[in-house]
């Protein structure tokens, strides 16, 4: 009898509880469906394409297995693109982090005018990479930019022509990208610095630690999660770097500044090699996953503890 009452009661209470249970799912369902189709669906589509012999348009009648991947890794331009990606991403991430951290520490010294300085460093981030690229292309062009100006004000022997030099051109892209992003990294680090508990710092000061030691031994180690976030943001920006390269050099001189994203676009749309383009896109995605998955794993795993 008692059993029957509880059952009846729970049946009465159930519609509300079920609704409460379901509501978040109903609200999230559309965006979930959209992501499912437009992100994961298209990733799957690209993966399928990469095994097909598609040329001009998607073509699902010829299959080449891993043929596109074999051709990809035998292609000199892809190897150039991978090498450039290595150079670019290492320098970009390291230099951005160092400059960002330095700026953040300097700004954290309770200086006057922080409110003015902080947005100045942040503003480049508000520009699109295309704007940054065009501006730096003109600035670095020996005929009209820095070299020309220096020579015309009297420093005749001044020479800075990296952007016209196949061996050095990739570094000019690093310069422009660092200029664009280091302010953003600074903002991340600044937020991290502000989040460090003052009590710990005061305790260290009472123990007689110098400012340098406090930063090196206490504050910077405490900011490990910020470093990780900065790394992930910068790494995926580096892998998908396309707009900046197109605006600055369009892959030139020669093929010196090709990047994987540029390769993907040029092969898919310029060379009617949709299969190879898809294969390169899949490789890029795997590179990004290789960075993001361990990061998510460590983040989510950390919270469970």
């Amino acid at each position: 009898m008692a059993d029957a009452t509880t059952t009846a009661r729970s049946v009465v209470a159930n519609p509300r509880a079920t609704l409460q249970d379901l509501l978040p799912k109903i609200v999230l369902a559309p965006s979930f469906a959209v992501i499912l189709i437009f992100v994961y669906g298209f990733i799957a589509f690209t993966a399928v394409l990469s095994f097909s012999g598609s040329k001009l348009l998607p073509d699902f009648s010829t299959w080449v297995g891993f043929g596109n991947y074999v051709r990809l890794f035998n292609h000199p331009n892809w190897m150039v693109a991978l090498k450039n990606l290595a150079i670019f991403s290492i320098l970009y991430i390291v230099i951005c982090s160092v400059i960002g951290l330095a700026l953040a520490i300097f700004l954290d010294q309770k200086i006057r005018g922080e409110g003015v300085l902080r947005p100045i460093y942040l503003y480049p981030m508000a520009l699109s990479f295309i704007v940054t690229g065009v501006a730096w292309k003109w600035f670095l062009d020996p005929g009209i930019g820095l070299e020309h100006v220096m020579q015309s004000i009297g420093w005749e022997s001044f020479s800075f022509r990296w952007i016209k030099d196949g061996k050095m051109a990739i570094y000019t892209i690093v310069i422009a990208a660092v200029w664009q992003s280091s302010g953003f990294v600074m903002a991340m680090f600044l937020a991290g610095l502000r989040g460090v508990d003052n009590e710990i710092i005061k305790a260290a000061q009472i123990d007689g630690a110098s400012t340098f030691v406090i930063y090196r031994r206490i504050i910077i180690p405490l900011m490990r999660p910020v470093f990780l976030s900065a790394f992930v943001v910068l790494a995926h920006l580096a892998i998908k770097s396309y707009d900046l390269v197109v605006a600055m050099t369009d892959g030139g001189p020669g093929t010196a500044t090709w990047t994987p994203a540029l390769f993907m676009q040029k092969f898919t749309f310029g060379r009617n090699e949709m299969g190879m383009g898809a294969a390169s896109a899949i490789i890029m995605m795997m590179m990004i996953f290789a960075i993001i998955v361990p990061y998510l794993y460590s983040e989510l795993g950390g919270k469970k503890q």
Partner: protein
Amino acid sequence: MLRKLLIGTMLGSALTAGYAASTYAAGGSVEVLHWWTSGGEAAALDVLKKKLESQGVTWKDMPVAGGGGEAAMTALRARVTAGDPPTAVQALGFDITDWAKQGVVGDLGEVADKEGWDKVVPTALQNFAKHDGKWIAAPVNVHSTNWVWISKKALDAAGGKTPENWDELIAVLDKMKANGITPLAHGGQAWQDATIFDAVVLSLGTDFYKSSMIDNDPAALGGEKMVEAFDRMAKLKSYVDKDFSGRDWNLASAMVIEGKAGMQMMGDWAKGEFLKAGQKPGSDFVCIRFPGTQGSVTFNSDMFMMFKVGDDKKAAQLTMASDIESPDFQSSFNVVKGSVPARTDVPDTAFDDCGKKGIKDLAEANSSGKLFGSMAHGYAVPAAVKNAMYDVITRHFNGELDSKAAAAALVEAVAAAKG
């Protein structure tokens, strides 16, 4: 003026075709995807637009500029995949063949047979404008790419004689260098490097051009002659200024116009830049074929590729095709565009000296079988192979490869792109 033009075009089409005006007049619309958006090009296209509108055909413009048509081709992919292709699309060379293979293009046979296109359009162009014996595209013009544009002043200062072979060319370039100007105005973009390469290969013999650039015979691609071609490219590189990398072709033309540089090796669209600057052929600048290539022509032809459309739009599409091939349009359009007509029976009276020379050279090359598709402009090999060649040519031009390595790399790159 406008009325004169209208009457002229009406008369012209009535006389030549008797077709457009009568059969298909009134009604319909054409949607045209193209990348002719810059001043001279847009003006030239306007000639066609006005002509169609005078026949009651509405013109729906769909300009997609950028990347020498690459952006337009990307837009076209989306439209075709969605099953709604435009009526007519500006297209080049193997892109037309590639689309034809997809089975989405229309058939212009009705107009072409009636107007006898087979007899007046050069055979080399028909290879692209026809697919499986059916007319699928209407050729608008022929650009030839083996031209050299020389500043008259700089040439006079360097002896005044136009070079007729490689050694004379080098002698002139050396003198220009000694005179303190940049001898060769060039923009370091892959397609511009390849445009010069076309001419250099052609100057080593028409058979060599055909076997290497068109037939892609590995023996020709990697042989002694190819090494020599690359050596010549390296020699030409030594006459280019140090800021050439990435420069647009029209800025290179401007250097010749301003007298800062001696000459530019570029297709005849460069002429438009000279004319716009108020220069006159013969007195301000000189046009010659790349030394050693007189008598043969590498061409690049703009065509309007026609897509399969519903019956309601078919009439307007055929009207447009007929208008494009009418001799009066061919003449008035190409005078504005700087190219030469895509049919060999158009009178050259309206053209300047360089245009007259272009028409004469084209007819001569067509009849002697020395009219070849330009590799640099997608008329010799499909896009994948063309770009593979670009890679090698531009790497060599930028000093990443020596001539022997470049010839070997060319063989490999072509084989890989075909694989």
